[in-house]
């Protein structure tokens, strides 16, 4: 992927996967996300960047309704996945989350075996009819998570016994095991060393072929390395959204420029 210079990235417009219009999020009285409009494309890596507390994680969590678990959180506006309003009262968030998988900042494998970690999602969604099929799903997910070769001999070992980077790739494998259409990643590399980070980034680039990936990151280099589209958030506003190459080389908004040159944030 490093042979893909920022300025030369193709600007082919793809199908829109998720579109948000006039999205507002409140935590009690705090207005955390202010009127965000964004179109997230299919088979694209979209990076959300911005200083701490700017609302990028909050917005990410709106996309699969993880904010529902926070009592004081209120979401307004319109967020559509393939044209369907995900905040429609008829939508069951559980079904939505099967389509929109999530990887968290801190690797959080279940305290179960590696196999059970990956098999759990397919099991509860009834994706396999027998053990052989489940084995196949688990292997495919672990291969896609680029961790199969490291764990294939010890699938019964606890997932919590792996190293941090392996745990995070296990979590990615767990997320892709349920065959989601969108993969949300909330600072997936912030707890990892540079080598593990490189592995995860490589993985994200591969996942782009099948999924729409949305990644929140604090590292602008990472955003530049892995994403095709970048959104810059500041104080709850979506300041600028565009091709990654354009954002990093020719930002339109002075705030974006200040941030990427290190003057704010």
């Amino acid at each position, binding site marked *: 992927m490093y042979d893909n210079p920022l300025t030369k990235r193709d600007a082919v417009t793809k199908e829109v996967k998720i579109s948000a219009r006039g999205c507002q999020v409140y935590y009690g009285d705090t207005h955390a996300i202010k009127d965000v409009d964004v179109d997230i494309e299919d088979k694209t890596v979209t990076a959300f960047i911005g200083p701490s507390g700017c609302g990028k994680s909050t917005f990410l969590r709106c996309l*699969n309704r*993880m904010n529902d*678990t926070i*009592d004081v959180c209120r979401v307004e506006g319109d967020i559509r996945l393939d044209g369907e309003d995900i905040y429609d009262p008829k939508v069951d968030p*559980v*079904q939505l*989350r*099967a389509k929109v*998988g*999530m*990887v*968290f900042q*801190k690797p*959080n*494998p*279940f*305290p179960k075996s590696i196999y059970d970690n990956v098999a*759990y*999602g397919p099991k*509860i*969604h009834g994706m396999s009819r027998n053990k052989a099929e489940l084995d196949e799903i688990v292997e495919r997910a672990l291969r896609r998570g680029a961790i199969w070769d490291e764990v294939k001999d010890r699938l019964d070992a*606890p997932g*919590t*016994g792996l190293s941090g980077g392996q745990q995070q790739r296990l*979590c990615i494998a*767990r*997320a892709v*095991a*349920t065959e989601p259409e969108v993969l949300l990643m909330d600072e997936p590399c912030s707890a990892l060393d540079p080598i593990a980070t490189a592995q995860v980034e490589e993985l994200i680039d591969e996942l782009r072929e099948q999924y729409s990936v949305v990644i929140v990151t604090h590292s602008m280099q990472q955003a530049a390395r892995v994403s095709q589209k970048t959104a810059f958030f500041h104080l709850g506003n979506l300041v600028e959204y565009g091709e990654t190459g354009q954002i990093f080389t020719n930002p339109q908004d002075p705030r974006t420029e200040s941030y990427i040159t290190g003057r704010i944030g």
Partner: protein
Amino acid sequence: MTDATDPSAQPAAAPQRRSSLLQLDERTRRRNAAEARFRLMGLIAVTIGILAVIGLISSILFNGASSFRQTFITLDVYLDPAKLDKAGTRDPEAISKVTTFGYAPLLQKGLVDTMAAQGIALDGLTAKQAAELISKEAPAQLRRYVMADVSRIGQTVTFDVLAAGRIDGYFKGRVTMESAALDRNVSPEQLMLADRLKEAGMLRTKFNLDFFTAPDASDTRPEAAGLGVAILGSAYMMLVVLVLALPLGVAASIYLEEFAPKNRFTDLIEVNISNLAAVPSIVFGILGLAVFINFAGLPQSAPIVGGLVLTLMTLPTIIIATRASLKAVPPSIRDAALGVGASKMQSVFHHVLPLAMPGILTGTIIGLAQALGETAPLLLIGMVAFVREYPSGPPDGFFEPAAALPVQVYNWTQRGDPAFVERASGAIIVLLVFLVIMNAIAIILRRRFERRW
């Protein structure tokens, strides 16, 4: 430090600050002294605690250990058909008409005859006075033995009968010649006779299994009193508490912790649960009396009522412990489960609950141990009654009168005969052993579940 920027102030301040690391300055010395004082206080507190526990346990053991041994007299008894089966039909129904009063003379005759055979003189005592060495419980013992197999009538059997409480006390050091001289129930001559019986091997002190299996006995025969009914009653109550309090408590805590909206109403419930844990236990007894006995019409003294009252008492303990261990499960596990599309309930039952299990079990067993030792509420619902009949097996046994271990202790300490002091201490030892076993189980379960990963 503002003057640090002023170069002229620098040389003047420097020599004053110089100090050797090898020499403690005044401040450090004071801090060290304060720490040493605090450590000493802690050490004193711990020592006092340990001494108190040692004192308590040794006093209980000193008083109670002897209750596990009991004095028995070995006799040859002729089961006279002329007395026990006048008709000669060996019909158990006819024989059961002979009361324990019919058996007492047989024992008296057996004792005198056995003594004569061993060459032990009565030494001025009448046969009746000699027979007072035998417990008043002994005729009942002999009657049960005969009723178990009526074909024994007509035979001469060798039988171990309980010695009277005073004689038992003499060999345990509770009764002396001096005290016997002032005692209406025993005379020094009888004690001397007991000594001679012991020399001849007719009288022995051995392990007292009956203490664990026999029911309570009346004031005048402490030597026969046992914990059987109390142990059974306590076991029934613990069963009721476990079956009711564990699922109710765990379900309530899961709902409150994971599902209930956080509003003023749930806050109120939370405060109330915490307060319930601090309500004096006797209040629960009054509640049980009013609700379960007077209103619901459940029988008095029954383990079911005791179990229900103790369930109410144990619930807050279990709920508080369960909520604490649910809270201790990292939220990242919940996120992980929700993130792969598990429902709220799946995330709780598949992931959160297994992780909280060691804490829940520990809390439950500690709650049970508390309930096992609880006395006050049981007094109010009639568990203090004198119960000689074993409750039958479950489920009927839950509704029949029974005693409970702590109440039995309380009961025995109220009685006049000093032999009951020994019995009460023995019962406390049994109770403590049960508590230690339960705490050990809690520790083992905790280890087992925690070691999984």
